[in-house]
């Protein structure tokens, strides 16, 4: 509508700003999780994630070297070194020698410690501790510093969560379990639904309109109703809780949408092609396999994405039909809920685990957005 006279209003800049605000508001929460997953637990606990790109000021408790590293220099005993272990790790602004007064001295000053020695701390962390008498004890003196550390990001969280075999709360197994649930639960309903959708779209038989109405009705039936009756059914036929039950449940719950989407799409295919094929002697089965299926690819892709996202992100079906008391078949969503309970404050673990779980759907989303939008437009009951 760009060509309509008068649409270029003076409000354009206001539109740009409001959209930018809206996008920021929608992106901000996810961004927070992503940034947090690359920070250490100390960083997360001491400063907001939005400060991650800036140098952060931290209060640290460090120690001078052990007394057995002291050297005699003339008539004083000296310990020298760097509080951080290396030069350049952080910059000290103020320091103190007691936990109650951590900012008494500026960097470069000399402070007198309780045991009679003096210590000089430079802003880069270099220190020189001097004592007239030989220093004793097993450990060095404590120094409380306020230091500015440069922004730093780490991949260690991902290493812990994904690749550490000794980590019992790791996501690697849950990731593969989720994948195991998802793929068959995506493919099988497509196939079953495609045949049914073809029959409902292009075959004439009594009761067709009624069946379509039933499918539309089943679209909104809450799957909550199905939990206990089906769990009982699964127990009776002997499959209990496990992958097979989860696959079957996902297939059943995904079918109404699949049939509805595919039928709507197939009805719109040109009648000529199908009638020509019939005149040429093709059977319904051949028409379906050789003409309808290839032409329906966009609708099949739309539904495949829906079903993939839905099964990957599902928690309820997994809780009821899949995860037994051994927990061997746990999926990522369940694992995260458990972490929320046991590791509520460990944001580095939570953020990383959650991001591992949402990374795959996000990839699929951005790669196949076109089909997703098309499916949404076709699938909302008009």
């Amino acid at each position, binding site marked *: 509508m760009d060509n309509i006279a008068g649409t270029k209003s003076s409000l354009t800049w206001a539109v740009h700003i409001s959209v930018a605000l809206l996008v920021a508001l*929608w992106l901000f929460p996810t961004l927070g999780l992503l940034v*947090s997953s690359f920070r250490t637990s100390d960083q997360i606990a001491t400063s907001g994630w939005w400060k991650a790109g800036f140098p952060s000021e931290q209060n640290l408790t460090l120690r001078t070297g052990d007394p057995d590293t002291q050297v005699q220099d003339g008539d004083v005993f000296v310990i020298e070194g760097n509080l951080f272990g290396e030069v350049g790790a952080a910059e000290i602004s103020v320091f103190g020698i007691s936990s109650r007064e951590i900012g008494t001295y500026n960097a470069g000053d000399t402070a007198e410690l309780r045991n009679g020695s003096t210590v000089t701390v430079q802003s880069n962390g270099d220190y020189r501790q001097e004592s007239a008498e030989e220093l004793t004890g097993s450990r060095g003196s404590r120094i409380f510093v306020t230091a500015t550390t440069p922004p730093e990001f780490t991949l260690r969280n991902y290493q812990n969560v994904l690749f550490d075999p000794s980590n019992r709360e790791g996501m690697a197994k849950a990731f593969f379990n989720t994948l195991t649930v998802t793929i068959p639960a995506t493919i099988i309903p497509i196939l079953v639904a495609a*045949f049914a959708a073809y029959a409902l779209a292009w075959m004439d038989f009594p009761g067709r309109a009624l069946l379509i109405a039933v499918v539309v009705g089943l679209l909104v039936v809450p799957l909550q109703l199905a939990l*206990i009756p089906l769990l009982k059914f699964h127990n009776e036929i002997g499959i209990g809780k496990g992958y097979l039950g989860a696959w079957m449940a996902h297939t059943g719950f995904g079918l109404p949408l699949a049939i509805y989407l595919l039928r709507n799409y197939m009805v719109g295919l040109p009648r000529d092609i199908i009638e020509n094929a019939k005149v040429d002697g093709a*059977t319904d089965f051949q028409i379906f396999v050789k003409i309808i299926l290839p032409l329906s690819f966009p609708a099949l892709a739309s539904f495949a994405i829906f079903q993939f996202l839905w099964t990957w992100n599902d928690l309820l079906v997994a809780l009821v039909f899949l995860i037994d008391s051994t927990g061997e078949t746990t999926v990522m*969503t369940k694992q995260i809920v458990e972490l929320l309970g046991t590791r509520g404050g460990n944001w580095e673990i939570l953020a990383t685990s959650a991001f591992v779980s949402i990374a795959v759907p996000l990839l699929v989303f951005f790669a196949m957005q076109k089909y997703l939008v098309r499916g949404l437009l076709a699938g*909302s009951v008009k």
Partner: protein
Amino acid sequence: MHPAFQGLLTIIIGVGGCVGYYYFSNQFLDKVLFPAKGANIGRNINRANMVRPWLFLFPALLALGLYLAYPVVETLRMSLSERLPGGGSQFVGLDNYGQMMSEPKFWEALQNNFFWLLVVPAMSTAFGLLAAQLTDRISWGNIAKSLIFMPMAISFVGAAVIWKLVYDTRPVDQEQIGVLNALYLWFGGAEPNTWLTMPFWNNFFLMAVLIWIQTGFAMVILSAALRGIPEETIEAAILDGANPFQIFFKIKVPQIMGTIVVVWTTITIVVLKVFDIVFAMTNGQWETQVLANYMYDKLFRANDWGVGSASAMVIMLLVTPILIWNVYNARKEMR
């Protein structure tokens, strides 16, 4: 057997089984049962074509019947009966419903669900409409749309973690790492709040998560509808001197009212089933219970199938008007 291998096997058996079923049942129909040759060739072809739709439909109908239709009936039956020790059950009439109604937790869930139904569809649709209208007018609108749409791909559980970080609370003397508390203090708040434990208001903090997810959906559908509006109507309004707000509210919105209703009802259904967000963020504590989570509690924690089924039937009852409306519209469209 390794589950991944088992999964692969299932795909092969499942897909192979389906394809085999369709292929061989068709072959059987055409070659054995009603062969298209011999004396009754015409009658045979007609008969085969009468049976074939049901061959195509059979697996789908079986799955639909078993996994969606039968549970509705079975849940209704269970909600009217009580489990007896050692298996078996006994008809108890409306006792389960009576017991459910006497529980304050149920009324709390019902009341919260009511607020969810009031707020979430309205806010999602409003934000979606706003985003659709604004992004349609700018050059980088498609990127903006993608980013607003993105939460659709994130699981409710993932969203729960994302928003728990937003709502995080640290003690007064520490720096806040949750955005909301940081902003609250920055704007002059006295001390950090634990947002998720403030009765009544915490419901709205949970709703924000679902609004955040559903806005993208509303935006995509409404944006398509806005683009479908005939340009002449807008041009005419401009010529008559309407300002942008009048064009939007008096010309565009009335023309897409049908789509707005569809979006509204679709989100309403999502709200009625909302479970994961509450389960992961508060688990119904601090007066945030909702029906779906209440039902899960009854079924799997209290092991009370009667009351659990009764609350499931309440959800079904709330969905029913939308179900009827959808079926009615679909039938009207087909004629």
